[in-house]
């Protein structure tokens, strides 16, 4: 909530204004129920909207952070109503129905009453901790100081114990805050840190036995346009340095992301071609003859775009910006959480720059012997062209290796072991998943002197025939190589994983998955419809109109039914002078020991409850007698009496303060 100060201030005004305003409403149980219905509708609607906007994992914290605004109707009926509590069954339709029936039948029923202010306070605190400001160092001290201020004004005695209590509470708050943040992270970061995307390094499961578990949720959807050409692989990132099952980018200077160049290409917002090409070559990026496809999916800031290795440019995406690094990894800053646009590809150029002479040929020294032997056995060095070398390698992998999602190779990812996981894969087991194939191929090719990189992304393999679109799921994640062709001055995709790996995946199409897909599709369609410029205005106007009409309707009815509130402690309907006495002033002080005085309990009776715990009960008796006279006897009191009561009240206050009788029930 802290990131929306305007709404926050408005809510504060609404919640705190009753202290300054002199009118109230006589809200009864029906009003409470109505407010709750309104709140439920608001909760449901905003829940749906937030879910559509941001997806299931982020929706909960976002909804929580909006709770103070959504619950304001309840707080309104509480703070502007005459009653200081509401029955608990307001919040349950069935309990309420039961109660109304019992009332009608005249059956007695015990009802628990709560003050919604407490609930609202807690909600506000929770919402505040979920806001962006809660990360700043002022947040927690600020909250503690504010709470301390509130508590201090409520009880002036024992400030030291209050400070101690606040310190302990502050400690718990820090722990709670950290815990909440962690929880939020877990909820928002796609379930587990394992799947978090890092453009500069990726840790593979090479050397880790056990099955790979992937989500079958749709990530992207791809519809070929014009020539019905479809890219077989969509890359999200490339890496070039291998150590113990991890691929990283190097040198460090090239990892930096730079904005995509838009200068020369006014027609196309984002050209993807390598920035080291000349301007004339750059123009190829918008070539009208290039094949194209539309790409649709959900995205957040810094989401990597899945693109073909020879992607040329992006069109029609609603972006705040896009950037890429020297390895051709493109990431975007979308305007909305769901994006759709056109990708032009087959530009005969690449998004990444030329290979680095050292990094793209680097090898783990211990394993070189194995690679050299394989190269020798296959006769790779004897082949004249790159294409021939690749062909031999592909055949070798296809004929001698099997695909397995559950490999048995085990090796440490911290220290180099002998033989390494890759060597085990190449020589003994000859069975593994795409990460093995891609890493091994890349290293062998490097040994053969061909700059090669490791690429991750998705295989395009599931065609929805009815809709004529390709569906890309988490299970379609794939890894392959990018091989530099010196001849074409181009990076080429090279995939040695046996094609059989796809067979295992397309079967995983359960009924729940189909329902999930359909929901996601609907959500995306609705969202994209909503953000289209024409529709967006309509939707905004329509929603604002409905909201405004409701607010006006409610406000008008409320305004008509408002009542002017007499100062507290005065008879209803009485507009004459209210003669407060000095004793009235100690009500707050006494309330600390007696609890708040119930509406219907006369002040004198209530105050006499202090009686036995005071050292001199006679002071109290005298003061109360005099108070009654001054307050309720229509005959004006003499000045002496007033002075005397003032003195008695002072003495009484001092007595209460110094002796601070124990809290009484």
């Amino acid at each position, binding site marked *: 909530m802290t990131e929306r100060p305007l709404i926050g201030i408005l809510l504060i005004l609404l919640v705190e204004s009753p202290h300054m305003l002199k009118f109230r409403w006589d809200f009864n149980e029906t009003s409470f129920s109505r407010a709750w219905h309104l709140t439920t509708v608001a909760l449901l609607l905003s829940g749906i909207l937030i879910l559509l906007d941001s997806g299931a994992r982020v929706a909960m914290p976002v909804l929580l952070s909006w709770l103070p605004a959504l619950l304001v109707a309840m707080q309104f009926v509480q703070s502007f109503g005459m009653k200081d509590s509401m029955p608990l069954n307001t919040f349950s339709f069935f309990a309420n129905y039961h109660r109304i029936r019992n009332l009608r039948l*005249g059956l007695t029923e015990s009802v628990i009453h709560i003050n919604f202010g407490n609930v609202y306070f807690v909600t506000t605190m929770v919402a505040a901790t979920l806001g962006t400001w809660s990360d700043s160092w002022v947040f927690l001290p600020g909250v503690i100081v504010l709470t301390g201020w509130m508590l201090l004004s409520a009880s002036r005695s024992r400030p030291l114990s209050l400070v101690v209590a606040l310190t302990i509470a502050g400690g718990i708050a820090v722990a709670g805050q950290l815990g909440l943040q962690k929880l939020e992270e877990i909820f928002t970061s796609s379930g587990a840190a394992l799947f978090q995307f890092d453009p500069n390094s990726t840790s593979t499961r090479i050397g880790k036995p056990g099955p790979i578990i992937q989500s079958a949720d749709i990530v992207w959807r791809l519809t070929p346009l014009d020539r019905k050409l479809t890219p077989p692989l969509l890359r999200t990132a490339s890496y070039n340095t291998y150590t113990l099952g991890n691929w990283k980018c190097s040198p460090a200077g090239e990892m930096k992301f730079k904005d995509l160049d838009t200068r020369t290409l006014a027609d196309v917002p984002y050209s993807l071609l390598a920035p080291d090409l000349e301007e004339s070559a750059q123009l190829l990026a918008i070539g009208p003859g290039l094949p194209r496809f539309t790409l649709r999916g959900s995205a957040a800031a810094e989401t990597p775009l899945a693109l073909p290795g020879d992607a040329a440019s992006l069109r029609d995406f609603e972006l705040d910006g896009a950037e890429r690094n020297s390895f051709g990894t493109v990431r975007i800053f979308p305007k909305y959480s769901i994006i759709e646009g056109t990708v032009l590809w087959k530009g005969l150029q690449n998004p990444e720059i030329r290979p680095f002479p050292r990094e793209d040929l680097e090898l783990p020294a211990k394993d070189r012997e194995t690679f050299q032997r394989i190269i020798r056995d296959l006769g790779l060095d004897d082949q004249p062209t790159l294409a021939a070398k690749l062909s031999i390698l592909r055949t070798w992998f296809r004929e001698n290796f099997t695909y397995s999602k559950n490999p048995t190779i085990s090796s440490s990812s911290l220290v180099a072991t002998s033989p390494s996981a890759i060597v085990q894969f190449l020589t003994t087991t000859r069975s593994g998943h795409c990460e093995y194939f891609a890493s091994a191929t890349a290293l062998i090719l490097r040994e053969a002197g061909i700059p090669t990189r490791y690429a991750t992304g998705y295989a395009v393999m599931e065609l929805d025939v009815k809709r004529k679109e390709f569906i890309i799921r988490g299970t379609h994640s794939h890894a392959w190589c990018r091989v530099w062709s010196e001849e074409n001055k181009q990076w080429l995709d090279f995939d040695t994983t046996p094609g059989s790996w796809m067979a295992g995946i397309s079967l995983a199409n359960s009924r729940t998955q189909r329902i999930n897909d359909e929901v996601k599709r609907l959500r995306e369609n609705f969202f994209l419809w909503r953000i289209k410029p024409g529709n967006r205005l309509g939707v905004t106007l329509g929603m604002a109109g409905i909201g405004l009409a409701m607010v006006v309707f409610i406000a008008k009815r409320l305004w008509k039914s408002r009542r002017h509130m007499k100062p507290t402690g005065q008879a209803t309907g009485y507009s004459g002078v209210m003669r407060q006495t000095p004793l009235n002033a100690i009500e707050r002080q006494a309330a600390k020991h007696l609890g708040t005085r119930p509406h219907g309990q006369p002040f004198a009776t209530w105050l006499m409850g202090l009686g036995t715990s005071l050292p001199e009960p006679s002071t109290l008796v005298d003061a109360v007698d005099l108070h009654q006279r001054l307050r309720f006897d229509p005959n004006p009191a003499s000045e002496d009496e007033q002075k005397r009561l003032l003195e008695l009240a002072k003495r009484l206050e001092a007595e209460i303060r110094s002796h601070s009788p124990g809290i009484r029930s």
Partner: protein
Amino acid sequence: MSIKNTAARLESAIGSVMHGQQEVVRRVLACMISGGHVLLEDFPGTGKTTLAKAIAKSISSAAFRRVQFTPDLLPSDILGISVLDPRTQEFKFHPGPVFTDILLADEINRASPRTQSALLEAMGERQATIDGQRYDLDGLFFVIATQNPVEFRGTYPLPEAQMDRFAMQCSLGYVSAAEEVAILSDQTDTHPVDRLGAVASREEILELMTAARQVRFSDELRHYIVTLVGATRGHPSVQLAASPRASLALMKVSQALAVFQGVDFVSPELIQSLAVDVIAHRLVLVPEAKYSGIHARQIVADLIEQTPVPV
């Protein structure tokens, strides 16, 4: 000073007969002083009749009449009747028991509503109209009616209009064991009522009544009374709510009670202590509430709790 004295003497005299019932005695006396009438609803044998007799006996030269209400009782049995005097050949009015200072209407719900209603005019306006002739009742006209809450066979519940004429309805209830022992030991020889002598004159009672009317009552508390009584109107369990007559009675009885408490102004505590007795019997509950055990007295008690009181 003499006013306070009179009040205290009356209280202690009746208190000596009614063991452990100081609170109710004070209320009933306050009701009398306020010019209202009281309905005692209680189980048999709790001392309803004794209380009425004790009050009558403690006031010197106060006429006391007792009418045992039965189903065949006629209005003329209460109001009086004109009889032709054969000597003068004129109708001569024989006043009924209503022409008295203190009237005990015992088991009032046993008479027919017609007879019960004969009391309406007398109680409301302190006058009786018989054969078109108006007769004023005495300044100190106080009706103590009793009824039994458990025996309903052969009874006629009091009409609402009649109920409304009673300023308040009290219950004596059972006393503590110690008090009951005191009652037993008190009556070994003679009944304490018989031993009771007059402690106040009729004039002194009239003085008390004047004093009660002079007890100061702030405007704000009048609003409080009106709010409290008004809260019965529109209550979901109440079919017939309290009338302005209830507000009036509550104000007057509070003033009278103030006299007995020795204060000369009314405080909200006083009003609250009387509100249930003064308001509850006037309410008619909706049948659903009635048959499911909700009591009018509880409703009024709840309303007292809910109505903001001036402090």
